[in-house]
Every structure is written in C-alpha cells, then in structure tokens.
C-alpha cells in the first residue's frame, strides 16, 4: 500500500516489466505508432513530425520513434515512483497543459494502447489480474499527468 493509500500490485507489474526488458521488446515505438494509427486525431499534436500519412509512414518516422522513447522513459519513472506519481509528473503535467496543450483524454488512450500491446506480447500470461494491475497503473499515470491542468 502506498503512502497515500494507493495500492499497486507491484509484483504483477514487476513480473511483466522484467520479462519484456529481457526480451528486448520494442515497446516504445510500437505503442506510440499504434496510438497515432488507431486514434488518428492524436496526430494533431505532431504537425512538425513530417510524414504521418499512413501506418507505414508513421512506423518509419524517426521523430515518432524518438518521441516514443521519450514517453517510455517517462513511464519507466512512473514504475519507479508508483507511490508518488503526482509529484513525479508535476513538471510534465504543467508542460502538457501550458505549452503542449494536450487534451488529457489522450493520456488514457495511450495507456490503453500500451496495455493492448502488452497483451499481444504476453498472450495467455496477460491474465485478468495482470491486466488489472497495468490498467490501474496507466490510469494513475494519466491522472498524474492531468493533475496540474488549469
């Protein structure tokens, strides 16, 4: 149980995290690419990224890949600071509100896409309990990222 009463089944998250780190799974680019294709309106924030005209263009876009890596690094911070997400993401939250003007709904979309990608990778091992743990985490990250919006 976290200091503020949050509960994250960290063993369930840790198990999946360890497995996909060891397997060198290209999680970062894949999840961001999937977000931009499945929910094409999310491309509105990336006019400067160049060619996003098709799924293959998005997959091959180096800026998409770079941004995906950035997002996943931040997500790694979330996993290390599960009991303190609002503080961890305070500056990022301000950035997304004041400079990037990102609708917080997009954080939920990306979180759900990440969960689906985990499911494609882990198959039967992605049990309801594991999914529940990850959904809780991505939801908490989305809330933390929206926390400083005004």
């Amino acid at each position: 149980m976290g200091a503020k009463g949050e509960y994250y089944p960290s063993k369930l998250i840790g198990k999946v995290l360890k497995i996909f780190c060891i397997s060198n799974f290209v999680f970062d680019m894949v999840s961001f690419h999937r977000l931009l294709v499945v929910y094409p309106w999310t491309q509105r924030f990336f006019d400067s990224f160049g060619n996003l005209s098709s799924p293959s263009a998005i997959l091959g876009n180096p800026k998409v890949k770079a941004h995906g890596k950035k997002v996943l690094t931040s997500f790694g911070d979330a996993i290390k600071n599960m009991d303190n997400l609002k503080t961890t993401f305070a500056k990022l939250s301000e950035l997304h509100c004041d400079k990037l003007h990102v609708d917080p709904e997009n954080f939920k979309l990306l979180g759900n896409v990440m969960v689906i990608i985990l499911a494609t990778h882990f198959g039967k091992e992605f049990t309801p309990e594991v999914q529940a743990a990850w959904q809780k985490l991505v939801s908490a990250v989305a809330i933390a990222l929206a926390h400083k919006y005004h």
Partner: protein
Amino acid sequence: MRIPGALGGVGASEVPRSRPPPRSPTWSCRLFTVYPSTKVYFPHLSSCQDATQLLSHGQRMLAAVGAAVQHMDHLRAALSPLADLHALVLRVDPANFPLLIQCFHVVLASHLQDEFTVEMQAAWDKFLTGVAVVLTEKYR
C-alpha cells in the same frame, strides 16, 4: 458508416471461427476483474466462480457482436431490439462501453498476439465504438 470491410484484413466473423475461442469465461471475468465497478450490472454473475454462467454470458455478448458484424452497414436496424433493451431495461451507463471494448481488445490481442496488427485494432475499435453508439442512442 465507413468501416474497413474486412476489419483489418481478416473478416471479423472469421476471427472467432479461425481460432478456437478460449474455453474459460475469459471476457466477462476479465471485465469484472479489471473494472470491478461493472459488476453492479451483473449481481448474479459477479463472483467469477460460476464458470458456466460466465461462459454463457460471454458467449451471448460475443454472439451479439457477431450479429453486428454480419450487419455492419445496417447497425441501427440490426441492433434496434438490443438498443431498446439497453435504454429501457438494462440502462447501463454509457461510460462502461469503452471499458468493455478495452477488455475485448485485450482478449483479442492476447489470443491473436502478432496477428492483432495496428490495422486490425483500428478496425475493431471503430466498429465496436459504432456498436456502442447505436446501443446507447435511444437513452434519451
């Protein structure tokens, strides 16, 4: 409504048939485990312990999805009785449909793995969102 006709290159009606569906009551139990608040609509099913009932419920929902796939271009007409049921009897809060859709995606993804491509996800998401819109549009 324009939906990629083959739902991502594989006919959606083929998806349950080309791979034997998991025998466990996966879908319903997953919904209740991941989103416990959804149990309020199923007090008779909420324990995940009665596999037969859960399987039956999951199969009923999957059959409805299958029927919707067969009538993809006439969803309103095809789903009208179900829309009436949801509006007048079940009255499931519309906010729950995205939760069910997410679980459906995860079951497909964990079952199909690499075959659950980004194009397939996009098609299924568009289709299921359309179904949810039709099922809730008679609410008021």
